[in-house]
């Protein structure tokens, strides 16, 4: 199906604070190819895709499908026209069985034909080389598998156009390979694939054509071979590089892990002894759910280890509650900012009052205001003391979370510190984190972005289904090597090397 957008515009809000998410966007996307939509966060990619898939309506402009003007008022309409969208966070039903989830939305008689659905599901799986058990629960799947399920569900419903919004966020390298080969096959079969991303390397290897959005405008397009520098310039209106690695100058040992043994309902992990020095950064790499999250939450005192010791400063905190870890200047920043980090409905000033040491029983509103003003300018947050946190953008929320951290900190634990942020915001966040390091804070962070791990860590721990590598020197590790380790390859080599070194 050929999709054309003609002069699509969409504005959120009114007056000076209005955001022009899409401005007069005219695109033509031919069938049988993978079409990339590239842009940094807030460029208007998701808005455009949500308009195409019926989640929101454009203020003006038309959607033309195979030469016919289409009226799409809801996702149901979009599905009728054959347009299906895969959202960044899979919109599936974790408590359901895979097969039940698969059948959802499919037209059928009152009593669904489970046998037929199961055959269809298995056929599709065979075709694309997926392996998901129909009788397992959706919440037992990895993010990558949930994407696969959603793709198969949409295909079974007969979609001709598949929109994918940042599909490579949070999935492992091998899963990404599977996803890409699936998309290539679908394009060969004549389906239209729209691939939305801010990751240059993904778009570069996958897409047959690219359109770039910036601040709501369509600023250009490109066909292979791609000129990456030019794309970056289009995205940001200037060239950006991450800058050089800044290795730390480690101080004294501040965090010690001894013979740590962790367990959850499916993993059992034994860690080697590890000493972390003040100012050092350790990156945790691995497929989602390989145990790095468990490790991080253990370091924060949220999960109790089944064996071993955790020593912060001079205090053995093994088995102590989270509050004790806080008192010992350990801080933990979860990845879901609005679910676990910030309190929706409360203002920035209220957050800063809560995060500071309590002074007396009564609130000093004026103190809260001035504190907020100070941090807002320190951390370049776009907001005022009375701004409710949920109205901040993702990057501003993450900056607010950093601004909430107390000083000094011995150990800072971060889950996906720059997930969903554009390059500029990420660089800013890391500049602030490195400032912490120079003040003597040790950092452990999780990221699914290998470049980020290599760029900012001093040492790296790789997690693979319950196995943990020894700490690798980041300066002597490559993206390829790391990618292989995450996928479970090349472990013998590094283990030998470590033994050899020892």
């Amino acid at each position, binding site marked *: 199906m050929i999709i054309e957008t003609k002069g699509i515009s969409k504005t959120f809000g009114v007056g000076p604070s209005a955001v022009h998410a899409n401005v007069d966007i005219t695109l033509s996307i031919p069938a049988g190819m993978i079409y990339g939509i590239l842009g940094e966060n807030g460029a208007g990619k998701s808005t455009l895709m949500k308009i195409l898939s019926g989640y929101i309506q454009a203020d003006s402009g038309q959607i033309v499908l195979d030469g016919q003007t289409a009226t799409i008022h809801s996702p149901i309409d979009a599905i009728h026209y054959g347009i299906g969208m895969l959202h960044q966070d899979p919109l599936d039903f974790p408590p359901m069985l895979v097969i039940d989830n698969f059948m959802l939305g499919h037209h059928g008689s009152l009593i669904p034909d489970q046998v037929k659905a199961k055959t269809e599901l298995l056929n599709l799986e065979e075709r694309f080389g997926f392996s998901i058990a129909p009788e397992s629960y959706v919440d037992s799947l990895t993010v990558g598998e949930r994407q696969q399920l959603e793709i198969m569900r949409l295909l079974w419903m007969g979609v001709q156009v598949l929109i994918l919004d940042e599909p490579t966020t949070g999935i492992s390298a091998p899963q990404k390979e599977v996803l890409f080969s699936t998309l290539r096959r679908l394009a060969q079969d004549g389906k239209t694939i729209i691939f939305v991303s801010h990751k240059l390397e993904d778009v570069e290897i996958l897409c047959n054509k690219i359109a770039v959005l910036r601040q709501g405008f369509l600023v250009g397009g490109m066909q292979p071979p791609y000129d990456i520098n030019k794309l970056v310039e289009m995205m940001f209106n200037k060239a950006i590089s991450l800058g050089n690695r800044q290795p730390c100058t480690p101080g004294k040992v501040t965090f010690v892990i001894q013979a740590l043994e962790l367990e959850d309902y499916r993993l059992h992990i034994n860690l080697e002894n590890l000493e972390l020095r003040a100012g050092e950064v350790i990156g945790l790499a691995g497929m989602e759910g390989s145990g790095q999250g468990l490790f991080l939450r253990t370091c924060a005192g949220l999960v109790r280890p089944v064996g071993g010791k955790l020593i912060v400063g001079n205090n053995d905190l093994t088995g102590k509650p989270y*509050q004790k870890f806080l008192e010992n200047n350990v801080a933990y920043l979860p990845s879901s900012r609005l*679910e*676990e980090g910030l309190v929706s409905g*409360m203002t920035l000033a209220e957050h800063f009052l809560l995060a500071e040491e309590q002074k007396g029983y009564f*609130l000093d509103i004026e103190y809260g205001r001035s504190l907020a003003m100070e941090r807002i300018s320190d951390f370049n947050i776009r907001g005022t003391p009375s701004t409710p946190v949920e109205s901040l953008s993702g990057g501003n929320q993450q900056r607010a979370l950093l601004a909430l951290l107390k000083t000094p900190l011995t150990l800072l634990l971060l889950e996906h510190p720059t997930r969903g942020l554009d390059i500029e915001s990420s660089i800013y966040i890391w500049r602030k984190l490195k400032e912490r390091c120079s003040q003597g804070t040790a950092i452990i962070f999780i990221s699914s972005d290998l470049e980020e791990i290599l760029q900012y860590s001093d040492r790296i721990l790789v997690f693979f289904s319950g196995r943990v590598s020894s700490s690798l020197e980041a300066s002597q590790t490559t993206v390829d090597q790391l990618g292989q380790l995450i996928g479970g390859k090349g472990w013998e080599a590094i283990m030998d090397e470590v033994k050899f070194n020892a």
Partner: protein
Amino acid sequence: MRKLSSTWWNIGFQLLGILLAILFTTLILIFVGAPPLQTYWLIIKGAFSSLNSISNDFVVWVPLILATSGVLITFSAGLWNIGIEGQITLGAIFTTGVLRLLQSTSLPPMLIIFISILAGMLGGAIWAALAGALKTFGGVNEIFGGLGLNFVATALTLWLIFGPWQRPGVGSMSGTEPFRESLWLPQIPELRISLWSVFLGILAVVVVYLLLRSTYFGLKLKAVGKNIRAAFFLGIPTWQYLMISFIACGLLAGLAGAVQVVAVYHRLIPSISSGYGFLGLMVAMLVNYQAIWAAFIAFFYASLNIGAIQLPIVLKLDSSISGILQGMLVLFVLIVDGIRQRLLKQ
């Protein structure tokens, strides 16, 4: 559209909600064949025409504002304390129990009253703590726990009235044997109202207002109510705060029950809570959980209750018509506000 967020629009929308509520109540009145204007006039007259009726408004206002103040605390923690009815009832039971125990001793009556009120607060707090423990340790939603405990409280009252605390002779729905007048909270001569209880009501709403607005406790409670996980990560002891908010609400509910015994009925009667707990939940919703308005709206609701007492006698209309207006007000003000929010988003 930007204007929609201004204060005047806000007030305009609320007035619209009130108008719609009155309109619908009027329709219902016409439907049941009652003259609407006369009905409203009778309610106003019944509520405000004499010193006696105004003092009666306050008799209802005191337990209502105590209950409202209580649920403002639990609402702040994100809890639906439906169990407040039972907490009021337990307050009344504990107060009655202590009064019965001490009435024949030689202690000064004011001391007995004082101890019995404290006991009532304790009773309410215990009942609330039960709902809280069910929630925090048992994973039972406070709505179900509270509902169950309400039934238990009612059953307990009936058992006491017809069992151990039976009147001499035969137990009846009119309650236990009334206490002697020296054990009543002192009332204004010729009127049913006690200035002491009015003072308690005012004190409660002021304290709760300050607590929620100006203290770290209030701010932390709000954080727990709005996002318990984030609050935990920020270092707030979350389950302790949930329990404290239950207990604080229980203390106020128990106080309401105690007032019902020492200042209004002077005995334990079957439905001693008189629905003030549920009414308090409605008032809290109507004032959008802002304590500052609670006192006035609670007084308005109380006067509706009192004003409607006339209706059965004069118009052969059930006095529950005031309940219809009270419910309609909450519904329409909330609906209209919901519509406003939707318009704002667009």
